[in-house]
């Protein structure tokens, strides 16, 4: 399969070898990748709670979204870069990891959910954003987002319990 070939190539690039062989690099990347969870999932969670009517109820949805989502996107860019560096260091091992594959699928689902929300029900946000309870479709989007991101975190953590890892 082509992807495996790509993983083999990536793992043997000088940068990937440096990440893998340095005492500090991989650990530091992983630390920042973990702390980045707070910025991505912690912020999007607040938007989800607003959509579900469980938090920040008195703030209009568009205020919450426009204030918080830039932090989420900024954090996501950071996660994507650090994540790709981490991936490059052990690409072949991750190619075989069920948890990692699941994580990528869940990430795609989380992205798709957000995209659908922004292109549909959020377009008409001015009609409903001041109500404490959002329309059903917005609530469903909030709930799905919450579940997908929790699952992404769980799958990410589960990588370390798969075959080939001794870290417990």
């Amino acid at each position, binding site marked *: 399969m082509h992807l495996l070939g790509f993983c083999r190539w990536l793992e043997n690039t000088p940068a990937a070898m440096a990440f893998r062989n340095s005492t500090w690099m991989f650990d530091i990347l992983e630390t920042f990748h973990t702390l980045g969870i707070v910025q991505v999932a912690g912020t999007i969670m*607040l938007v989800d709670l607003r959509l579900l009517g469980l938090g920040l109820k008195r703030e209009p949805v568009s205020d919450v979204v426009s204030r918080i989502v830039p932090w989420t996107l900024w954090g996501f860019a950071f996660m994507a870069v650090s994540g790709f560096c981490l991936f490059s260091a052990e690409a072949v091992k991750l190619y075989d990891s069920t948890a990692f594959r699941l994580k990528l699928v869940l990430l795609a689902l989380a992205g798709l959910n957000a995209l659908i929300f922004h292109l549909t029900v959020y377009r008409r946000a001015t009609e409903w954003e001041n109500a404490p309870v959002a329309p059903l479709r917005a609530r469903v989007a909030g709930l799905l987002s919450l579940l997908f991101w929790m699952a992404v975190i769980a799958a990410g953590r589960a990588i370390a319990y798969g075959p080939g890892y001794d870290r417990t």
Partner: protein
Amino acid sequence: MRQSLQPFFYWYGHTPLANMMSNSKVLIASAQIAHLLGMTLLLGTIMMVDLTLLGFGIKRYPVSRVAKELAPWTAAGLVIMFVTGPLNLASEAMKCYDATFFWIKMGLLVPAVLFYFTVHRRVRMADPPVSGFRARLVACVSLTLWFGIALAAKFIGFVGDDLRQPAGIFFN
């Protein structure tokens, strides 16, 4: 000081709960994942209040309004952390006892919680809001303490039980 707690860690690491935890990879993984999700909730909400204090968050509203709405979620995050933390500790009590970064984490945890319920509380709940340098300083101290804890926690796993090694081998 640390040595005096050794019997406690030894006892805690050999309780039936600890044995059950350390014998099950699924239980260890679940407790770790729950701890990580709790961290997201706890630090995510605190970060949003601190960003608001710094003037980056939801700044159209007084900080106290945002803080009041998020307080129950921060509390929930704190409860999750204080339940799953000791569970994780049970599965590797002696490793933590011998880990420099575990003690750094515990050392930061006490001031972080105290700060959150005292100085931070006064500033985030202030009406009219505290502005300028004092608010920003409190936000910076809060972020440093909480992210310091998370950073130290991550490093327990990397550096491991270094205190068991002869002196001088800190990072190897």
